[in-house]
């Protein structure tokens, strides 16, 4: 099997969410001395792009997206140690700090976005649920994030998204971060109203959004 064939098969294993197949192919690529970074870029990431596009146009469903992410992560368990052994580094597209806002303990949506951003090439710092605004900002400062992603699943906690933005302004830090928002009751209108840098309806939207924001980096 030549390199391109292997990459194609890796991508297909991700699309199918075939974890064992993805692991076996990753092992083959290591045995064949293929650059693990290239295997990620041309194999695994390509698979995520394919499933992401299908998800976006309604041909694939959420479980298929999650299954693909599982396939991606399975292959990474083989490729990551190899990258470290070769003293190479995965170049991340940016760092996203993500969390659910204060008063809100919903985690599912945030977890999906975390997983898809992670497989999409971003470094993601997940600070969990029910985060006070100040803590979110402190964590963003500490982790030197580029983007702050705020989840709210209830109309009653949406104002906490606005609060984070207001606190950032008060602290003179608003220009330092892109702030993006999401969650069941959240929409573009709310994002505009509170001055967020973007809104994503789905996890795939979030990847496209963060990519475009990072392209015009502050």
């Amino acid at each position, binding site marked *: 099997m030549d390199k391109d064939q292997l990459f194609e098969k890796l991508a297909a294993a991700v699309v199918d969410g075939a974890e064992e197949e993805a692991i076996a192919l990753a092992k083959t690529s290591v045995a064949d001395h293929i650059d693990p970074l290239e295997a990620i870029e041309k194999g695994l990431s390509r698979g995520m792009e394919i499933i992401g596009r299908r998800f976006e146009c309604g041909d694939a469903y959420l*479980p298929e997206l999650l299954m693909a992410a599982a396939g991606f992560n399975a292959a990474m368990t083989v490729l990551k140690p190899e990258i470290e052994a070769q003293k190479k580094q995965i170049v991340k597209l940016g760092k996203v700090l993500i969390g659910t806002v204060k008063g809100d*303990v919903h*985690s*599912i949506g945030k977890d999906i976005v975390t997983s898809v951003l992670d497989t999409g090439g971003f470094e993601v710092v997940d600070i969990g649920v*029910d985060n006070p605004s100040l803590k979110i900002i402190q964590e963003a400062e500490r982790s030197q994030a580029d983007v702050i992603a705020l989840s709210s699943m*209830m*109309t*009653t906690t949406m104002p906490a998204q606005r609060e984070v933005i207001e606190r950032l302004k008060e602290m003179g830090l608003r220009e330092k971060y892109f702030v993006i928002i999401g969650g069941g*009751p959240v929409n573009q209108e709310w994002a505009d109203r509170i001055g967020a840098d973007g809104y994503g309806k789905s996890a795939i939207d979030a990847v496209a959004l963060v990519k475009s924001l990072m392209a015009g980096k502050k």
Partner: protein
Amino acid sequence: MIIVGELINASRKAITDSIKNRDVEAIQTVARQEHEAGAHYIDVNAGIFLDEEEDYIRWLVQTVQAVVEGPCSIDTPNPRAIEAGLSVHKGTPMINSISLESERYNNMIPFLAGTDCRIVALCMSDEGMPKTAEDRLRVAEKLVNRLVQDRIPLENIFVDPLIQPVSVDKTFGIEFLKAIALIKEKIAGVHTMCGASNISYGLPGRAFVNQTFMSMAIGMGLDGAIVNPLDKRMMGNIIAAEALAGRDNFCMNYIKAHRAGKFEF
């Protein structure tokens, strides 16, 4: 089976507009349809309006009850909106919903303690979302105990074990179903209640999943549902499932529904 009609919800586009325009006739038409289709409570939700929520809830309760002789389900955790709704509500409303999250509980309970309101008690706590059936029972027991201490009669409490989408984790359906049975067994006399639509998030053909899930939940003992009462298949499923679960003497409710043409889709 207690049916709560879910249609008057501001997160639905048509209703958003009707509320914004204070379109009395549009709201009353939906309320009347829901009532005639068998809803015992008409849910009213204006959550997306945030700052204007309390005014809209007051208006919705008055508008609905002007044409429907029956109670509303006041759908908000916002204490000011609850107070506004209660101030104009005739009869005994349902409150949808309280939870064990401290801030939500403490804010809401002053308006509910010692009243005769029916209360939906959502299995959510400061520790987050429950995952297993046992987690849900633990939250339910604590929450029901607190409500009873705050002088809410047990039979007025409707525990909602909290549905999470099965598209995200294959165990989310079965753990919910097991929780219904467990709660009914361990907290004798309490009601259970749930919506149908969260289970199917992320899947195609959602209506089909929702209907099937509702039948399964009724099989486990569910006795309250927040649904679209105009969905004839859903309502037909509920009637058939209740008969199958042994809650319909001589299957008379089922037979009556058949004679009334409720299974003709």
